[in-house]
C-alpha cells in the first residue's frame, strides 16, 4: 500500500519534470545543465497543471489515466525535441577556485533546508492555516469534480473564507497527486512544492554562477533556501513557493532575453508569467511588471523586435489567462474583492494607511527572525557598490524589486481587513515573492575574491 502510494506520487512528479524538459528543449538553447534542470522542474508543474485545468474545464476531472496519457504525450514531445532540435554547443563555465570551507559548510546548511522542507511536504499533515483553509481544500475540490459544470463549491458563500475566486493552478498541481493515487490523501498534495523549492534555489545558483562565480552562487542560493520564511511556507501547502519559483524562472528568462534576444526565452518568460497569474492574484501584478521591464529595459527598447516581443509576451499571457476570467465571471464576489476595490477613489480615501504599511515593510526588512541577514546584506552590498557603474542586469533586478514593493502597497490600502491583523499575517509572504530579485542582486554584488581575479588575469 505504502509502496503503491509513493510509486504513483513519484510517477506523477516524473511526469511533471518530463513536461518541463519537453517544452524547454524546444524553446531554450545555451543553458547549462544546472539552469536547464532548474527551469524544467519549475516549468513542468506549471505546464502540466495548466493542461489538467484545461481538460477539467471541458468536463474531465483529473484521473490516473489522464496523467499517464499526458505524461506519454510529453515524453514524445521531449523525444522529438531531442531528435529534431538543433542542439547548441554545451556551455562550459570557467573553472573557479571556491574556498573549501564554503563548499563544506554551505551544503550542510542547505541540506538542513532540504530536510526541513522535505519533511513538511512528505511527512507532516497540512498544518498551515491558509494551506488547509484555501489551497489544499481547493485541491480536494478539483480532484473530485471537473470544472465544467462548475462545482457547487464555487457558489457556496459559506466557504467564502477559502476565496472562491482565487486562481487554481497550484491547487490543480496538488490535485494531480490525488488523481494519480486515486484517493484523497491528506498531506500528500504538498509534494510538488518540493520541485518549486529546489527549482528556485537551482535557478538562482545557475544565474549567479554564470556571471559571478561559484562562491557567490552558493551564497545567493543558500540564503534563499535557508530563509526562515521559506521554511515556513516552502512545504506548507500554500501557493507562496510556487509563485516565488515561477517568478524566479521568469526573471532568469528576462535576463537571457536582454542578453541575446532569443524568441524562445521570451516565450518561456511569458509562460512563467502566465503561470504566475494563474497561481495568485499577486502573480497578475508581477506578470505586468515583467512586461514593463521587457518593454523598458531591453536593449533598443523602441526597436521593432522589442515592440514585437512585448506584444507577443502580452498576447501569450492574455490568451492563457482568458479561460480563468471566463471561469470566474459568474462566481460570487464575497471575499476581499481586491479587483473591484483597487480604484483611485478607494486608494485616495485610504491614504492614511500608507505610513503604517511602509513602517511594516521597513520593519520586515530588518526582521532577523524572518530573514536572517538577507535584506540587511543586500542593503550593505548595495551601499558598498555605490558609485560603480551598474550593468543592465543589475538595473533590471533593482527595477523589478522596487516595482514589486510598490505594487504591493495599494492592495494593503484598500483591503477590508484591519491592518494590525493583516500586515503581520501577510507581509512576510510578500517579501518571499520579492526574494528572487533580491537574491540575484546579492549574488551579483558579492565581492569577487582577490585571488580569483588574479588567477583569471594570469590565465
Amino acid at each position, binding site marked *: 500500500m505504502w509502496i503503491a502510494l509513493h510509486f504513483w506520487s513519484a510517477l506523477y512528479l516524473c511526469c511533471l519534470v518530463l513536461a518541463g524538459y519537453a517544452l524547454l528543449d524546444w524553446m531554450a538553447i545555451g543553458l547549462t545543465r544546472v539552469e536547464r534542470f532548474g527551469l524544467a522542474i519549475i516549468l513542468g508543474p506549471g505546464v502540466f497543471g495548466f493542461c489538467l485545468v484545461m481538460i477539467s474545464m471541458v468536463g474531465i476531472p483529473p484521473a490516473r489515466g489522464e496523467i499517464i496519457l499526458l505524461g506519454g504525450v510529453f515524453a514524445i514531445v521531449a523525444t522529438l525535441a531531442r531528435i529534431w532540435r538543433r542542439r547548441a554547443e554545451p556551455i562550459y563555465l570557467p573553472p573557479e577556485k571556491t574556498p573549501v570551507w564554503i563548499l563544506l559548510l*554551505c551544503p550542510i546548511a542547505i541540506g538542513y533546508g532540504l530536510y526541513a522542507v522535505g519533511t513538511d511536504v512528505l511527512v507532516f499533515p497540512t498544518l498551515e492555516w491558509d494551506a488547509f483553509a484555501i489551497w489544499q481544500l481547493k485541491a480536494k475540490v478539483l480532484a473530485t469534480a471537473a470544472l465544467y459544470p462548475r462545482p457547487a463549491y464555487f457558489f457556496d458563500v459559506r466557504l467564502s473564507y477559502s476565496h472562491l475566486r482565487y486562481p487554481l493552478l497550484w491547487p490543480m498541481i496538488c490535485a494531480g497527486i490525488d488523481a494519480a493515487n486515486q484517493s484523497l490523501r491528506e498531506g500528500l498534495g504538498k509534494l510538488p512544492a518540493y520541485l518549486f523549492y529546489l527549482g528556485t534555489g537551482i535557478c538562482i545558483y545557475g544565474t549567479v554562477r554564470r556571471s559571478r562565480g561559484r562562491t557567490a552562487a552558493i551564497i545567493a542560493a543558500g540564503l534563499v533556501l535557508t530563509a526562515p520564511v521559506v521554511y515556513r511556507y516552502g512545504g506548507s501547502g500554500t501557493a507562496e513557493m510556487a509563485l516565488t519559483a515561477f517568478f524566479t524562472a521568469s526573471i532568469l528568462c528576462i535576463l537571457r532575453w536582454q542578453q541575446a534576444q532569443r524568441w524562445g526565452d521570451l516565450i518561456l518568460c511569458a509562460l512563467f508569467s502566465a503561470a504566475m497569474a494563474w497561481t495568485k492574484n499577486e502573480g497578475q501584478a508581477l506578470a505586468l511588471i515583467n512586461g514593463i521591464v521587457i518593454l523598458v529595459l531591453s536593449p533598443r527598447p523602441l526597436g521593432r523586435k522589442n515592440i514585437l516581443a512585448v506584444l507577443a509576451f502580452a498576447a501569450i499571457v492574455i490568451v492563457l489567462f482568458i479561460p480563468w476570467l471566463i471561469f470566474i465571471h459568474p462566481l460570487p464576489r464575497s471575499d476581499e474583492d481586491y479587483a473591484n476595490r483597487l480604484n483611485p477613489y478607494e486608494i485616495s480615501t485610504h491614504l492614511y494607511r500608507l505610513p503604517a504599511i511602509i513602517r511594516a515593510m521597513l520593519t520586515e526588512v530588518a526582521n532577523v527572525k524572518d530573514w*536572517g541577514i538577507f535584506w540587511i546584506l543586500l542593503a550593505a552590498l548595495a551601499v558598498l557598490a555605490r558609485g560603480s557603474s551598474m550593468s543592465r542586469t543589475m538595473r533590471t533586478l533593482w527595477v523589478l524589486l522596487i516595482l514589486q514593493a510598490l505594487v504591493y502597497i495599494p492592495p494593503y490600502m484598500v483591503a477590508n481587513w484591519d491592518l494590525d491583523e493583516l500586515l503581520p499575517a501577510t507581509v512576510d509572504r510578500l517579501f518571499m515573492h520579492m526574494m528572487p530579485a533580491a537574491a540575484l542582486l546579492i549574488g551579483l554584488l558579492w565581492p569577487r575574491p582577490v585571488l580569483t581575479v588574479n588567477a583569471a588575469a594570469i590565465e
Partner: protein
Amino acid sequence: MRLPDSMSQRQASSNLKKYFPTVLGILVVVSMASLDYLDWRRRTSPGSEEYMKFIAAWDNEYLAVSRGKGVFLQFQNLKTNAYQETARVYFRGNFILYPLPVIAAPEGTRINRYDDLADQNMHFHPNGQWLAARGVGSILVIDGSHGYDNPVYMIPVPTTRPTTAVQ
C-alpha cells in the same frame, strides 16, 4: 612622518579588500547555520507539538463523528477571544471531511472570517429534517465554556421529527 602612515593605511586597505569576501562569507554561513538551528528548535518546541496534537485531535474527532455523512457544527458559550479557534475548527472540518459537508450556517451566509461564523452559528438551530436533507448525520457541539482541551460532544440527528436538541 606621513609616509609610513600612508603606507600602513594602504596595507590595511589592501588587507581589508583581501579578507572582506572571507569575512562576509563567514558571516553568511554563521547566519544560515543559526537560522537552521532556530528552525529546528521551533519545530521541536512544545508549542509546535501542541498545535499538531490540537489539529490531530480535531481531525480524529471529525472522522469519528462523521461516519460517512456530513456534520453540523453547533457552537455554544463562545467567548470573543475564542472566535479564532472556532474558525479554525470550522475551516479544518471542511478540509478534512470534503466532499462531505460541514455546515455551521444556513445557505447564503457569507463566512469570511471568524466573527461571521460565530455570529451566524449561535442563533441558528436547524431541525433534524433540515439537516438530513443536506446529508448531515451528526451534530458536533463545541462548548466554549470549557476551553478547547476537550469541549466536544456529539448528538445523533433524528431524521423523523424536528428537534431543538442543541441547548
